[in-house]
């Protein structure tokens, strides 16, 4: 661990668009501090060009390593090549890139398709053979998690003809839009009576949807099942109240494994596994939601 002490590491973060993202940033900063790393943080405000600028800036400064949470999979080859030429190891966080594997040390990420699949599998188990009309709250149109989580969920419910996706709209990953879209779905599906479950691409939208369901006089978690992804504190408190049924955790601690891999590499050149996949753990009310809420509360979500 000490091998990282005093190193300068650049971290190009996407931005601060959600609570989960803020948690990832603060966990990364915590991890760096614990290891005595001087972390240079750059917020790209959702823009790939800013991330590229940041990486180039880090190279110009001569940092010892670079962490990057890429906003999109494509377009990294040139800048990663530059980093390689400058002999600076790069580690990708929370999603991969479309670039030759030798351009980065390792990629620490979750499997977003799997997250969707886990959520879908849970629903398949929960409804059994009963017919079930699902409404889907998509993430931002075109964003990678939205595409992957949709795909995974669809894979999971394939072959279970009793489960159909009745409506699917974007809630932009936000609570407010999640609520608004859910309100519309409820009106469109016979006052919500026809809806069996809502699948939200993230917990924030699910929290909004839960409020919309309550406002319509229905019971979230009972009348309409709620399944979502991320595992932010608020969804656990909803679970405590019996208003959410399942969430798939996406850990904000991507930096921990990344620093471990870096330390090993710098110490004796150990090549880490190319893809370090974080766990996509399913949480249901049976998993002590109150406890989960308490442990997560201070993480900056």
């Amino acid at each position, binding site marked *: 661990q000490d091998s990282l002490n005093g190193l300068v590491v650049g971290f190009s973060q996407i931005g601060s668009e959600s609570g989960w993202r803020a948690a990832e940033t603060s966990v990364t900063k915590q991890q760096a501090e614990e290891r005595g790393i001087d972390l240079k*943080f750059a917020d790209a405000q959702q*823009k790939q060009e800013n991330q590229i600028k940041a990486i180039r800036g*880090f190279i*110009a400064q001569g940092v010892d390593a670079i962490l990057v949470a890429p906003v999109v999979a*494509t377009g990294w080859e*040139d800048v990663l090549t530059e980093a390689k030429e400058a002999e600076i190891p790069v580690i990708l966080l929370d999603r991969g890139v479309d670039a030759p594997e030798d351009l980065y040390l390792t990629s620490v990420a979750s499997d977003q398709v799997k997250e969707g699949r886990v959520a879908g599998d849970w629903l398949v188990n929960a409804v059994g053979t009963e017919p079930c009309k699902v409404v889907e709250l998509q993430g*931002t149109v*075109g964003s990678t998690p939205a595409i992957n989580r949709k795909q995974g969920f669809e894979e999971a419910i394939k072959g279970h003809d009793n489960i159909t996706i009745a409506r699917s709209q974007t809630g932009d990953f936000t609570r407010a839009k999640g609520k608004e879209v859910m309100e519309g779905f409820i009106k469109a599906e016979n006052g919500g009576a026809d809806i069996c479950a809502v699948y939200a691409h993230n917990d924030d939208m699910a929290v909004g949807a839960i409020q919309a369901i309550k406002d319509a006089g229905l019971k979230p978690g009972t009348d309409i099942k709620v399944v979502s992804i991320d595992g932010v504190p608020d969804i656990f408190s909803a679970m405590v109240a019996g208003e959410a049924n399942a969430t798939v955790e996406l850990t904000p601690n991507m930096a921990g494994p990344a620093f471990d891999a870096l330390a090993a590499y710098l110490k004796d050149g150990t090549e880490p596994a190319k893809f370090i996949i974080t766990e996509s753990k399913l949480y249901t009310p049976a998993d002590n939601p109150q406890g989960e809420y308490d442990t997560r509360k201070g993480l900056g979500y």
Partner: protein
Amino acid sequence: MKRSLRPLAATAVIFIIAYAASVVQFPGLLSTRVLGNFLTDNAFLGIAAVGMTFVIISGGIDLSVGAVIGFTGVLVAVLISWLGIHPLLAFAIALGVAALFGAAMGLTIHYLQVPSFIVTLAGMFLARGGASVITQDSVPINHEFYSTLTGLIIRLPGGGRLSFIGLLMIAIFLIGALLAHRTRFGSYVYALGGNATSASLMGVPVARTTVQIYMLSSVLAALAGIVFSLYTSAGYPLAAVGVELDAISAVVIGGTLLTGGYGFVLGTFVGVMLLGLVQTYIIFDGTLSSWWTKIVIGVLLFLFIVLQRIIFAASAPGEKSPEKV
């Protein structure tokens, strides 16, 4: 020095002072690598900002440029990667589509007398929506022509690189400056921004010029989109969100008046470089959190504007305080 050039010089001086101050703090900023990056990383913004300069000088605004950049990237990527069309032909198609798009906006603005703010806002929705309809995913481009273009790099001593797109941006700025200051079209643009009624009574072809201005802006935005696709070797529907605001900021920082009639294409260049400097400074600092980054950008924007205001007050002919006309 000509009186009207003073704001331009002022902006340049502000840039130099700001750069010098940053270098004192982070000596690493003074390297050919950083300077080369300035050009490469801001190439697409700079090219789009040239078009925006013309629009703003003519008294309008174009909110669609970011979306056109995104749309063009997707279109080019799809044409090349999915349909196997040669990049050059794909570029031509993309520029042609953009020209039609800009012409449609110009025609609406002129003949329907709808403010440009609203027309180009609708244009922004349309282009962004069009891109996501084509594909939601980001589409990688793997074509040797692309590798050739991105491989065109002049290496400078000290690790710096002058890239093809960086040089293209400089060329566009020079052509833009020539177009603005040395052609009849350019004088019509200034005339429209100065006083559209007078311009029309003086025989300026208002309809044609308006259409040309928005065509120019859209075509340059499309070129910026092509540059962006070269920069990232991909097309992505959500690319360059909000770039229109960066472009407007660059134009305004460069000394062009949003009310129209005054401005400098080369001032916009300095504006782009200033924005790039701010970002690079923040990266070199590396201690700012996400929110402090936004706040610092806002504060710097404010400082530049106020500084300029003070210098303008002494030099700009047209912008008298309305209170004291």
